Each structure stands twice: as C-alpha cells, then as structure tokens.
C-alpha cells in the first residue's frame, strides 16, 4: 500500500491520462480555508455574563469546597455543617419512619396492594386495640390475614430488631391518625412493655394468634385523635402536636 514504492499511475500530469482521475476529484472545490470575520460584540458580552454567573454560582452552591458537604445549599465557608434541628413532633417522626420502612408495601396512600399487602387506612387492626397492633409490628406476620372481608397473603418482617420504642410509638401514632384514621396516640412506654412481653418470640405471628391477644389499650395510649372537628389529621397535628403522656 505504500505509494512511494509502487509506480503509481497518478504521479505526474504529463504521463497521466486525465480520464483516469475520478470525476469526483476533478469537480472538487479547493481545500477549505479561513475567513476573517471578527467575533461579534454581543457574543463577547454574553461570555462575560456567563462567566460572572458562574463565579456567583460556584461561590454560593459549593458547600465551602469541603469533601464532606453534600448539600449544596448548606453554605459552609469554614464552619462545620450542623443539621437543621428537626421537629420532635411524633407525627412528623412517625411519617418519616413510615415512609422509610412501611410505604413500599402499604404505600404512601395507606391503601396497600391487592392480594398481598392489606390497607392501613380505615383498617380495624390499626384503629382497634393497640395491644394487637403493637404485637403485629414487633413480631411481623406470616400467612393470610383478612381486612374488611378481603384476604391478603404475604409476609411482614418483625421490626423489634430494627426500630426503637419511640420510633414504633411514633409510627403507630402516625398510621392511627393519617388517611382519616382517628385512633389515639401510642406512647413509647406502652411499646416498651409489649416488647418485654414478647421478648422470647422469634417467629412472625399468624392471624389466629393475633386475634387471640386480649384487646386492650397499652399504657399511655390516648383515647382518641386530638381533632374531631373534621380537619384532616395531618393538619391538626401541626396545630396541636400530640404529646404522649408520660
């Protein structure tokens, strides 16, 4: 393929049969060259404006260029990041716990999934005696369970190894007062008592076992939702935070 070595018919116009040069090459235009038009003024201005914006953006949204600041609006030129104090409102904590642990099956809407995960909204287990509800969450469930006459069949893990008393109390309070549910708030000491009572149980409960638990309210459970005036429970909670009795 080295054109230097082989006698090439294309070398030298004199011995060259013009017809042999491909038509495409003959009609071709010159090789490209440059025009000398200046850069438009508006473009220069736009570049300056962009550069100015960039500097500002980097200054305000770079977390002080630290390696351990991930949140861009947490400006940290030299001072250590502090997490913004979050409300200790049990409904707010309960919602966080719910979303993180329960919502993937029971859904954010509390409606569950047909056939597998029962709804929590308007459920007798949720609004009913807190002793059974606490037992379910502490130990988990296995096998079919009937809610409003419909059977749901799947497994729910035990949460006693994963959540603390106040977290369980908060999430139970949350589900008992969200989606139109109006049952009373659950207190951490009630959960602590139940946890001790169930300490030796290592397998999930079944429906008959749950129904065998005496229906009673745990110590510290308030009798009903704080609002009965028709405001949505979420709203009511911010207006009048539930303080578990101690």
């Amino acid at each position, binding site marked *: 393929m080295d054109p230097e070595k082989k006698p090439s018919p294309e070398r030298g*116009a004199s011995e*060259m049969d013009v017809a042999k040069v491909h038509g495409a090459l*003959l009609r071709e235009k010159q090789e*490209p060259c440059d*025009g*000398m038009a200046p*850069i438009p003024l508006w*473009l220069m201005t736009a570049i300056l404006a962009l550069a100015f914006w*960039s500097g500002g953006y980097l200054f305000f949204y770079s977390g002080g260029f630290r390696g351990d600041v991930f*949140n861009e609006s947490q400006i940290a030129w030299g001072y250590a990041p502090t997490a913004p104090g979050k409300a200790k409102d049990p409904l707010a904590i309960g919602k966080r716990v719910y979303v993180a642990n329960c919502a993937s099956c029971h859904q954010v809407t509390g409606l569950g999934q047909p056939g597998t995960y029962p709804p929590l909204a308007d459920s007798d287990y949720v609004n009913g005696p807190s002793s059974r509800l606490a037992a379910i969450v502490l130990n988990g469930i296995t096998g079919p369970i009937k809610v409003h006459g419909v059977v749901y069949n799947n497994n729910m893990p035990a949460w006693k190894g994963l959540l603390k008393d106040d977290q369980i109390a908060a999430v139970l309070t949350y589900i008992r007062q969200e989606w139109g549910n109006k049952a009373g708030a659950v207190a951490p000491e009630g959960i602590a008592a139940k946890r001790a009572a169930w300490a030796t149980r290592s397998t999930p409960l079944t429906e008959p076992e749950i129904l065998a638990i005496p229906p009673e309210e745990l110590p510290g459970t308030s009798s009903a939702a704080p609002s009965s005036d028709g405001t949505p429970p979420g709203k009511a909670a911010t207006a009048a935070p539930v303080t578990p009795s101690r």
Partner: protein
Amino acid sequence: MTSPSSSSSPKGPKAALADALDRAAIDASCRLPVLLFFGSAIAWLLVGSVFALLAAIKLTTPEFLADHAWLTFGRVRPAHLNAVAYGWSSTAAIGVAIWLMARLCRVPLRHARILVAAAVLWNLGVAIGVTAILAGASNAIEWLEFPTYAAFILFVSYAFIAVWAVLMFRERRPGHVYVSQWYIFGAFFWFPWLYSVVNSMLVFWPVQGSVQAIINWWFGHNVLGLWFTPIALASTYYMIPKILGKPIHSYYLSILGFWSLALFYSWNGGHHLLGGPIPAWLQSASIVASVMMLIPVITTAINFHMTMRGSFALLRTSPALRFTVFGAMCYTVVSAQGSSMALRSLNKLTHFTHYTIGHAHLGMYAFFTMTMFGAMYYITPRLVRWEWPSAFLIKAHFWLASTGILLMVVSLTLGGLIQGIELENPKVPFLTIVAHTIPWLHARSWSGALLTTGHLAFALSFVLILLRTGKQREGPTLFTKERSFP
C-alpha cells in the same frame, strides 16, 4: 457540471488539474485503511442495531427471549452501547479522521500498515469485549464494560493510531494548519490518555466507590466531548466549506470554539451525579462547566451558519451536505439541551428517566452518526473511484434515519418527562409510572425499526459501491435530478 475547466482553483485549469492529481494520489494512499475502518464500522452498526432492537423490545415485553442468560436485558443493553460506541462510532470516526488528516496535511498517507494492523486489532478487541459482556464478564461500569483483556487490545490498537497520527502530522506539507486538524489532533491525544487513566483507576486498580462514580462519568462524558464530538466537528468544518467552495466564516470564531470546548467539556462529567454521593462543590463545578459549554456551541453554530448562509438551497441536492448540516444543527440543539439538563431544578426531573436516554441518542445519533454518514457519502466515492450506484438508497437512508431519530427523541423525551414528573410525586405508585412509560417505549421500538431499515439501506449502498455496480456515472449521485451541481 463536471468538466475540469469549471473546477474552482483560482490558478487556472492547469493548476486545478495538478491539484486534482495530488488529491488522487492522497486518496489512493488512503484506500485500504479507510475502507477497512468504514466497512467494519458499518458491520458493527448493524450488529449494534440488532442489540438495540432486542433491548427495546425487552423493555416493554419482559418475557421476550427471557430464558437465555446471554440475552437478558442487562447484558444486551451494554452490548448495544459498546457495539455502537466502540464498534461503529469510534471506527467510523477513525476512518474519517485518517482521510481528513491526509487531505489536510496535503501528503499521501504513509505507514498504512500501522493503520491496517490497528483496524484488525480494534475489531478484535470490540468483538472479544462484546462477547464477554454477553457471557457475563462485564465490568458493569457504564461505557467501560469491556473486561481488562478486551480494553487492553483496544488500547494497543489505539496506540498504533496515535503514533501514526504524530508521524503523519510531522510529515505534513508546511503551511496553514486548518481548524479540522486541531480537533483531530486533540481527539487523537485525549482519547488514549482518558482511556488509560480511567481504565487503570476503575478496572485495574479500582479506587473507592464514589470516586469511581465520578471518574466513570468523567470518562462517559469526555468520550463524547473529547473524542466523538471533535471528530464530528472536524468533519463538519471540512465538509461545509469544501462542498460549498467557500472559506469558513471566521478563523477567530474557530479558535474561540476550539479552546473553549477543550477547557469546558472536560469538566462536565459530574452533572451525571447531581444529588448523588459526591461533594456539593464537584456537582456545582460540573454544572457551571455544562452551562459554559454554551460558549463553544454558540460560537461553532454561528461559524457554520454564516458559512452556509446563501447556500441552503444546496441541501436539496447534496447528500453529504444534507447529512452533515443535519448533524451540525442537532449539535446545537443537543448541547443547549445538555446545558439545561445540568441545572439542578430541571435535572431533578430528568435524572434517572428516559429523557436522558433521548438526549444521549440526540447526541450520538442525530449529531454524531449523521455527520459520519455525511462524511462517508463524500469520501467513499473518492476512494473507490465510483459514484454511489443508487440515489434511491441514499434518499431512503436519509429519510429513515431522520424520521426514525426524530420519533425516538420525541417519544423518549415526552415519556421521560412524564416519568420524571410522576417520580417527583411520592403519591404515585411506582408500577403506575411503569405503566405510563410503556406506550412511549413502544414508539421507541418502532423508531428503532426505522433506523435499522435505514442502516440496511446504507450497508447495501456501501456494498454496491465497493463492487462498483451499475453503470459508470459521470456526475455525482444527488438527491435531485438537477445536473448542475455547482
């Protein structure tokens, strides 16, 4: 008109003939390596299209061919990406770059053997890599799925090409270095540096997870920005003025465009990880660089547009020009879209959705691939010394490719937006979102079928021109019947 006397050398017919003979010598010297790269590129394009179709169908019909481990979605999808990125795009880019280098250095190509060896090795590397992915040996790092042995072969092949490029550049005929050469020169250096740094820090001696992610996307974005884009721009900077017979509008804009691209594109990678586990400053730096990409893009767009001004009618006739200009226009669109997607407020909707996939195809297909098609339509007849046998096939290719990619980008963009907006709302259950994307994914499968048909038309054209079928034409093969190609 095709008579030599109309050739536009300012120096008169004699000099014009001498120029043509020079070009003939250059083209003859390029014939084997360039056609080898083009031919294998087209073969990989077909392979990549098949994988793409399989993956697209699987995304709506999960049971389709589901019982073969080799054909599970999670293997076919990376097989598609690697076949089109390394098999088609890189090979086509290298072929086009070799020819442009030889033409612009104004010397016949030397050391063709190096390039032939590189082509063989490259194809071997891609074939081994794609097979390894299907066999389950993938690294699962996007854009870098090839296992070490395949990556190593590619690297060796690439080293050959880089050495050749340096030798060639040194042997150039003295004089002006045209903007296309800057881009090719840059790409030929950037890619091997990138590929070796990244492979060594991710595959050979992997660093910690989050740093891997940032290096991963630094590569993922640079392979577009510092490898495919520069070569496509080099081709556009050559083809537009060449076919029009006009100088490029402004040398100063060319300079500004080139250096701002070099400076900003290489900082974009972090915008693939917005909200992710990398420090805020890295994210913000990449956002800023992505927005600054407006500078090279606007600059280049002005330069192309002003050169084209007054000559847009030619798009009706010349296939090479039409494909190239289509690509150039999409470059402006895709880059502006990319800058906007890097903004946190829009990114939180588009991140993790099909919108991003639509954007990627707008870049890699509507811009890059269309530009390569344009260049191949221009270059191949000069190498084979035969005109394209069928205008119908070229026309079919153009319309299938352009409507196909339009349909794909529109359906993925709209489907992705719906997906993103619904993901933002935690009350919408996940499976509902899945159900809402399915009609758009069906549309995407159909667009893939259009593109694949277009590729078949192109491949057929290519085989026919290699075989020199049909009668010998005098004039070029054009879209319209007009004889007077200026």
